[in-house]
């Protein structure tokens, strides 16, 4: 039982294969993105950031969609299972990670192309709100209580976030179009994609998707392990408390 030297705890042959493919993909993406693909006519070299930034942002959105769906699956009585809750949690965590990264890379990209780290563009602002919302979601997951308490509380919160996102996006967009004439577009930032650039972006999406699946699988299993550890801790505590009564 105490195999302290065990190295691969949450892996299976599938995730190992997936991991190897993902790693190869990352190498290929870096080589293509940084060296092989051409510079953009308008943006120059800075377009290379796109291959890391855009897929990350997309996958973050996808991760939050997965969180919402698995939360609904948990709340629906016929599919109620803590696995859904753990998938929701793992996905939200990976989503927050990817979104945090995209916010940073996006602002670096913005600094080069727009000359500013941040702009109050609707998509950017919504993304920032989304990020904070899911940071809050993760904080609520950490509040404690039993597994099912945690699951119910966070599932309701995740569905509220799904409701919140379109409202925030719509209001920011309305605010933006009415009050911000100088928009981001039309300042020589359009990217004209050639075949290789498109392929690199496509590869980026695939690599990030693989990375996402790998991360969520492992994180979800790690969460399951943590839940099991808590349960077996209860067994020990229960035995100790029962022994107390005998005396």
């Amino acid at each position, binding site marked *: *039982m*105490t*195999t*302290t030297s*065990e*190295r691969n*705890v*949450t892996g*299976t042959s599938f995730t190992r294969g997936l991991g190897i493919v993902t790693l190869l993909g*990352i190498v290929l993406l*870096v080589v293509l*993105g*940084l060296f092989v693909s051409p510079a953009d006519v308008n943006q*120059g*070299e*800075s377009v*290379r*950031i796109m291959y*890391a*930034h855009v897929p*990350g942002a997309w996958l973050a959105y996808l991760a939050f969609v997965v969180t919402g769906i698995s939360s609904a699956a948990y709340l629906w009585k016929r599919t109620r299972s803590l696995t859904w809750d753990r998938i929701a949690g793992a996905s939200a965590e*990976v989503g927050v*990670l990817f979104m*945090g*990264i995209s916010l*940073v*890379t996006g602002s*670096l*990209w913005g*600094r*080069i192309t727009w000359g500013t780290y941040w702009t109050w563009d609707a998509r950017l602002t919504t993304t920032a709100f989304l990020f904070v919302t899911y940071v809050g979601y993760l904080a609520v997951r950490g509040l404690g209580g039993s597994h099912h308490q945690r699951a119910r509380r966070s599932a309701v919160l995740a569905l509220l976030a799904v409701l919140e996102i379109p409202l925030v996006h719509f209001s920011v967009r309305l605010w933006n179009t009415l009050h911000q004439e100088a928009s981001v577009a039309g300042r020589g930032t359009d990217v004209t994609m050639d075949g290789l650039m498109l392929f690199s972006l496509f590869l980026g999406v695939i690599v990030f998707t693989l*990375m996402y699946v790998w*991360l969520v699988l*492992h*994180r979800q*299993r*790690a969460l*399951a*392990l*943590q839940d*099991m*550890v808590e349960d*077996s*801790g209860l067994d020990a505590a229960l035995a100790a408390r029962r022994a107390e009564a005998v005396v």
Partner: protein
Amino acid sequence: MDDLGFILGSYVVTFGSISLYVASVVRRSRRAGRDVPREQRPWT
């Protein structure tokens, strides 16, 4: 070129923080895995 630092930086930030996250997940699962026998893990 000025932009070079930014471009490299964004790749470093991306894959660097993902690696850190992977490390933390692996570390946490190893710690938890010590107390859970292999046959109890549904995925094995």
